[in-house]
């Protein structure tokens, strides 16, 4: 008899459905995006390192938790993950599938170099909205989906912390 449990895992902007079925030999059958793999995960004992074996290929992964998320390093790629009770709005998509107002936040601290939209403007997905200078580079913040700019929270020259609101899309 097998017991199947489904977890909803948020990785970056996506929420993925991961179904786990324990096997008699202590391995797990794990299904993600329609593909099932045999998985074992063994902790190394330092609280950071784990050995992940997926379909017979073994690799180290590194994990560290903070209050909101679990950081995982897989093959040099660092992901911020979180377990969520329900899939986010729009299910397995990203924010692009969402509806309702969306507040965009500064992804890093920096100085606002340029604001490329005005309140009331309609923007398409991918449209540049704000130029934020950090680490001596100008970084364009682009629109994650189409919408109208309802409120604009920043002006050029303003210094921002990570997470400060930039603007709200309808």
């Amino acid at each position, binding site marked *: 008899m097998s017991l199947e*449990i489904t*977890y909803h*895992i948020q*990785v*970056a902007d*996506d929420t*993925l459905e*991961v179904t*786990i079925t324990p096997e008699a030999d202590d391995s*797990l059958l*794990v299904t*993600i*995006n329609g*593909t099932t*793999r045999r*998985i074992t*995960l063994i*902790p190394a004992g*330092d*609280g*950071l390192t*784990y050995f*992940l074996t*997926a379909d017979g290929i073994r690799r*180290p*992964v*590194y*994990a*560290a*938790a*903070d*209050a909101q998320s*679990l*950081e*995982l*390093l*897989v*093959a*040099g*790629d*660092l*992901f911020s*993950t*979180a*377990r969520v009770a329900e899939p986010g709005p729009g299910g397995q998509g990203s924010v692009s599938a969402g509806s309702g107002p969306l507040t965009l936040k500064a*992804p*890093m*601290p*920096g100085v606002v170099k340029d604001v490329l939209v005005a309140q009331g403007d309609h923007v398409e997905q991918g449209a540049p909205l704000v130029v934020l200078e*950090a*680490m*001596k*580079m100008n*970084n*364009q913040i*682009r629109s994650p989906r189409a919408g109208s700019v309802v409120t604009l929270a920043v002006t050029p020259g303003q210094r921002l912390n*990570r997470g400060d609101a930039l603007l709200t899309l309808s």
Partner: protein
Amino acid sequence: MPADPPVTRPIKKLLVANRGEIALRVLRACREEGIATVAVYSEADRDALHVRYADEAYLIGPAPSSESYLSIPNLLDAARTSGADAVHPGYGFLSENAGFAQACANAGLVFVGPPPAAISLLGDKAMARRAMKQAGIPLVPGTDRVTDPEAALAFGAEAGYPVLVKAAGGGGGRGIRVVATPDELAGALQQASQEALQAFGDAGVYLEKYLLPVRHVEIQIMADSHGTVVGLGERECSIQRRHQKIIEEAPSVAVSPELRGRMIAAAVAAARAADYRGAGTVEFLLDRDSRFYFLEVNTRLQVEHPVTELLTGRDLVRDQLRVAAGQPLGYTQDDVSPRGWALECRITAEDPHNSFLPSLGRVRLAQLPSGPGVRVDSSLYDGLEVSPYYDSLLAKVIVWGEDRAQAIARMRRALDEFVLLGVKTNIPFHRYLLDHQDFQAGAISTSFLEGVMEDFGKAATANRDLAAITAAVLAHSGLSPASAAPGQASADGPAARSAWATAYRMRNSGYWKV
């Protein structure tokens, strides 16, 4: 030839006017040479490796570099207080600032770099072009300083589009704009001029024809005050993102021994034309027909200098120190004997899956690669706070191999060993590039990255799925990963927390555990 007879001035104590991996690099050379060392640091860098490494360290101001690493009065104060007799500027910051070199000289300090006049001449890119033209060195078709849009339009019509608008006082790839059509030109001039004023304090801009496809190939030079100028071979730095180099290698697959000889001769002529001393880099563009064009001279040690060091076996900082002290270089062109292949990857705190936006945060775990043929120049340690104030370079991984294929395999292996928790890096992008068949075949140009960015985005989901699987299995098994800070409230229970606290203390008990 210098007018004054060379004077020997031994360096006893040296201040490094820089931070990060390059500060550490210079301090290491001083340690080997028996020179006492002085570090300087901003408030954001109190715990930095270069501060721990030096014999003495002085706070020179708050985090913004304009008030610390770019403050000439604060740096000279630190030099005076410490009794240093020499200053090494590293790269970036004040390294190509003739005013700083002159201020050091006025304060009786040896400046480890070229004379102020050479920095001024070569630092003004338009003036440098004129000097190089006179010396018979081939130039990319271009203009002197341009303010009049009509003159710019005339050049565009003659040379053909696209053209580049570049800051006359610029360098390091900043302040460059590509203009594809005549109607964009006036706007680009204005924007570039404004950017140049902000970035370099000089609104001057000039135009160049944009050659495509083209390779970026540069010659490392070293000159002493006794008339010796040596070219230490080339580095190819064609792999660039937004004009910032990402991967550098030496030699270049596109440079034959005969071409190398001609490029070195041109670089040496450029150095002589500017009465150059110390380490410098003459940058060229190399087109498909093996024609090369002078781009600019960087009057400092380059980020990618270790590539040349691994290939030639020379220590360029040691050479810089000898030359600055007035000693002869001690070798000639005939003594330069490159061997094998060297490759460098710049590891930056940027999120490759999110438009390469800077990634900031605290480093939780840093395990650096090592083993045969691998060198890592880095400022990383467990607990480092990656801040928004400085550039995003965290580490340079440099490898040596008998040939290009072995060097690439070694780099791939070294990047597999590189573990960094806490900030996102461009390592996944490097791995993708190293595996790319065009890169492996050496079929690269400065526009190489434009063609591969989209494919990289598509290839990124495999690791994401493994991360989701790991997160789910951790939740399923009740395994407790270490939490961020000792003492922080955590659902993992006291056992997991104390294990983390112990590991954290162990890793921080000695600073070489990086």
